[in-house]
């Protein structure tokens, strides 16, 4: 009973937060609502005992991705009028996409009637079953090569992103730590020996 109540509580918050992402006029509020979405979906994942994925969702999306999102949103001066300019013109496209999604969700929910109920959830696992361990065994064992390929693709993407945004500014004064550390007093200071003045 309690898990059900919790589920509906989190689901309500999740839906409300998702609506808030779209309708809030302030982009910072929209980003914060998205954070709330991630946190509540992590809570729902915890309810179905996917604790590793739930914590990683909070760690990666809430802890890193959304921080950078907020960072950018706060620095940009977003003109909402410009963003809303084509709202009525493209509304029909939005309605079609929304309709398709509603149909898809209905399809998933209604499959219960066909005897292939996917909404019932998996069978309860034994108490000593470790989600994290199983996930690791699959990722590093059975799917090791796809995993490595995904890692390489990500690495290439990072390099490409840096290469695209890197600007070489002329006359930029940068610190060369290696040269600073290698500097010796003998190169910097020249001691000059001079005769002291003679007083006649």
């Amino acid at each position, binding site marked *: 009973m309690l898990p059900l109540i919790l589920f509906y509580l989190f689901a309500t918050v999740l839906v409300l937060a998702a609506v808030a992402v779209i309708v809030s006029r302030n982009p910072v509020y929209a980003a914060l609502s998205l954070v709330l979405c991630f946190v509540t979906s992590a809570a729902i994942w915890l309810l179905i005992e996917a604790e*590793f994925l739930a914590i990683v969702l909070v760690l990666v999306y*809430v802890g890193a991705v959304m921080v950078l999102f907020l*960072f950018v949103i706060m620095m940009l001066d977003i003109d909402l009028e410009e963003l809303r300019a084509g709202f009525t013109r493209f509304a029909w496209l939005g309605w079609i996409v929304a309709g398709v999604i509603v149909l898809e969700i209905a399809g998933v929910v209604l499959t219960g009637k066909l005897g292939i109920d996917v909404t019932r959830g998996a069978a309860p696992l034994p108490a000593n079953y470790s989600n994290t361990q199983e996930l690791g065994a699959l990722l590093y064992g059975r799917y090791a090569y796809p995993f490595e390929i995904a890692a390489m693709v990500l690495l290439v993407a990072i390099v490409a992103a840096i290469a695209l945004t890197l600007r070489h500014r002329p006359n930029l004064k940068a610190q060369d730590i290696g040269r600073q550390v290698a500097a010796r007093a003998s190169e910097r200071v020249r001691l000059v020996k001079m005769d002291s003045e003679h007083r006649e």
Partner: protein
Amino acid sequence: MSALGDLWGQLPGYVHSTLFTLLLCIVLILSVAYLTLWERKVIGWMQLRIGPNRVRIFGFLPGMGQPFADVIKLLIKEIVIPARANKVLFRLAPAITLIPAFAAWAVVPIAPNYAIANVDAGLLYVLSLTSMGVYGVILAGWSSNSTYAFLGAMRSAAQMVAYEIAMGFALVGVLMAAGSLNLGVIVTQQHGGLLAWNWFWLLPLLVVYFISGIAETNRAPFDVAEGESEIVAGFHVEYSGMAFALFFLAEYANMILIAGLTAVFFFGGWLSPLDGYPWWLGGTSLLALPGTHWLVIKLFALLFLFLWFRATFPRYRYDQIMRLGWKFLIPVTLVWIAVEALMSRYHVGPWKL
């Protein structure tokens, strides 16, 4: 006494954990209060000053009443909310900064085989909570509608995101050594005395973790988010009274958390340094028994480092902070994780894989 013990045993688990949580919170808040005094005293001594010595408790112990005097002063001050600030977020931000610093203690093993919540993915829980703290800083800076506050928030956000990566990688080494994400298991795996603790085998990771911890808590020499010489007081420039005190509390609570986590990850938590040694080294004496006191001793020794660093090092320049984080600390962790993998492959050191 035994009747009380029986009653205690009969109480359901959630009563136990609630009481322990309350106790822990009170201890933490008192520690934060006296940490501020300790810091001022230590820095005073290092600079050949006396430090706070006026407010007494019951007429003696000069200076010991200072934290309470400070708290009462801040409590009765007015909280000024800037006219064009975002009022909701302005009020929310201090709480968001403070909550993770306390919530993370839930999984820290504070006594032999005891933590308030024995979570299997405890290490990830700690990482995800500490990464939430940055929201308070960003929101405080943005909602104040002040350029100084905003600059402080930007600096702090970039710094915290950068150092979180080094911190996470350093902890990868710890979880490789322990073979578990559970903080209790990480402690018990280090049993066997001073040299069996992780600091010995993972020394580079310890250094990286502690430096990142100082950067994460925005402490000197990484306190550019406050940078009073350039941006007045950074993200909390517009806060006054108790709202400011919450940021202050969060900073010190975070210091205690980082010191406690370092003690758990690298210094064997509640284990005794003499544990497992022969009798002539004290291995059978009372000192070899594990207990909360060992965690407390290690925690305060590490906290002292925070104060020492603040009194010693000048503040880093912003580009130097970024360089240290990305180009030095992260490569060090990557190299040491590889070394650790080789060591465990060839059974050098105490790995149990």
